[in-house]
């Protein structure tokens, strides 16, 4: 700040008062006010500075060459960005794309939660439920009932509080029937809306979800499940009786049924008790699969792999460019194994039928028992270890914990 100007101290005092107000009297909603009136801050700043300079000129005191210094312009730019973001968040559905900035901006405002008015519609046999792209989390559960029912709540991250009843009218969840399809369309209203939907469907429904962000949790469905989109959140599947297809820009996954559970995050895929053929292609994830059948095709760019097939060992074709591979086989398994690493070590904790051949950099391990299925494991860089699974190790000791959102009950007021 330029020496002699009162703007610098004024700005500091102003910022302090703002945050103090926000912390002690949140009901005043100062940032809601600022989101609209911040341009007048700039005007006031300019006017004060102008008056100062004219005053100095009148007193024939030396004048600064620049009325507003580079640092002050930077601060003004910051005020513009923040004010503009707050205004946009308040007046439109726009939200900053940068996660950190978005969090910062939204934290300044307040969030309001409203229960969604429940919506339901009868669905014919073999109902196809389509969940359209929206912002938020969704939990889909199969229920022995012939209706599709949507409940949930919505969180409005905005800077001004709309009337709750009005919000319910403005942003209901829409259920649309188009031919055989039942479309769930959460409409987005004023401000930024995050929806937490709880959808129950007839158990034989097929599910198609097109998502953008948030968590997906799908349970007890006896129809095929297709999930595609780009997810910031997690995807959990449990007890799905028909083929599952998952696709995002960094990963594709498919299997024929999920009697157990699958848990996918941005860094990890864990699956327990899935019916194959299982096909998984990903750029960078750690993969742990236990209790799979039929066959497994796994292709990773980077990531560690832990596999523990069930009592009958299926065919496997596993590649990772960089990462360790750990395979636990039942003691009495039949298989035809050939595993290799281009740079790394091989550990044989299985014993007898396997032979290790270590060269200068890489190593291979191979062996077969009673002409069982082919197991091909390859890693470009990493260790390979083959071991015996203990009887209780058809699933991992820390088998996938699938937290359900029932931990945190939805605040739904049934009407």
């Amino acid at each position, binding site marked *: 700040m330029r020496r002699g100007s009162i703007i610098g101290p004024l700005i500091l005092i102003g910022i302090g008062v703002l945050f103090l107000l926000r912390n002690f009297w949140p009901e005043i909603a100062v940032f809601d006010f600022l989101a*609209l009136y*911040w*341009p*007048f*801050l*700039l*005007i*006031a*700043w*300019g*006017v004060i*500075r*102008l008056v100062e*300079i*004219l005053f100095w*000129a009148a007193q024939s005191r030396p*004048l*600064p*060459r*620049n*009325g*507003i*210094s580079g640092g*002050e*312009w930077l601060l*003004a730019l910051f005020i*513009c960005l923040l*004010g*503009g973001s707050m*205004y946009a968040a308040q007046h439109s559905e726009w939200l900053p794309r940068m996660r950190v900035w978005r969090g910062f901006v939204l934290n300044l405002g307040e969030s309001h939660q409203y229960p969604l008015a429940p919506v339901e519609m009868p669905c014919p046999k073999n109902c196809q439920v389509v969940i359209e792209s929206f912002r938020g989390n969704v939990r889909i559960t199969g229920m022995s009932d012939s209706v599709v029912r949507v409940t949930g709540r919505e969180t409005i991250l905005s800077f001004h509080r709309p009337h709750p009843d009005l919000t319910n009218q403005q942003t209901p969840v829409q259920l649309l029937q188009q031919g055989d399809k039942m479309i769930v369309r959460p409409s987005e209203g004023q401000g930024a809306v995050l929806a937490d939907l709880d959808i129950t469907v007839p158990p034989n429904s097929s599910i198609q979800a097109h998502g953008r962000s948030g968590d997906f949790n799908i349970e007890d469905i006896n129809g095929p499940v297709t999930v595609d989109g780009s997810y910031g959140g997690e995807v959990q599947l449990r007890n799905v009786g028909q083929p599952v297809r998952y696709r995002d820009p960094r990963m594709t996954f498919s299997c024929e049924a999920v009697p157990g559970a699958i848990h996918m995050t941005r860094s990890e895929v864990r699956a327990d008790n899935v019916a194959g053929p299982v096909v998984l292609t990903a750029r960078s994830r750690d993969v742990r699969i236990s209790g799979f059948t039929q066959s497994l095709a796994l292709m990773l760019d980077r990531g560690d792999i832990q596999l523990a097939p069930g009592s009958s060992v299926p065919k496997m074709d596993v590649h990772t460019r960089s990462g360790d591979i750990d395979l636990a086989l039942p003691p009495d398994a039949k298989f035809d194994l050939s595993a290799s690493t281009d740079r790394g070590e091989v550990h044989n904790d299985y014993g007898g039928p396997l032979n290790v051949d270590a060269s200068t950099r890489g190593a291979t391990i191979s062996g077969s028992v009673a002409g069982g299925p082919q197991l091909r494991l390859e890693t470009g860089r990493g260790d390979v270890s083959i071991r015996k699974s203990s009887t209780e190790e058809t699933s991992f000791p820390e088998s996938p914990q699938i937290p359900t959102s029932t931990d945190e009950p939805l605040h739904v007021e049934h009407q």
Partner: protein
Amino acid sequence: MNRNSAILLSAIRGPLLMITLGALVALDYFAGYRFSRTWPVLIIVYGVLKLLEKIAAQPPARPPSGYVASQDSVI
């Protein structure tokens, strides 16, 4: 017009631009003139202030002998 007024104009350029910027955004929010359309006003204000400065920094009409204009111009 003299050198002092040139310095004064230079000093108030920042504050005036700040006021213009604030006013344009306020017009956007309250009067519906979108900033995306009104922003050239900022350039015009800047240009006008620069122009006034130049005019103010012009040497007097009849310079004393040996006067070199470029030495005195403040840009």
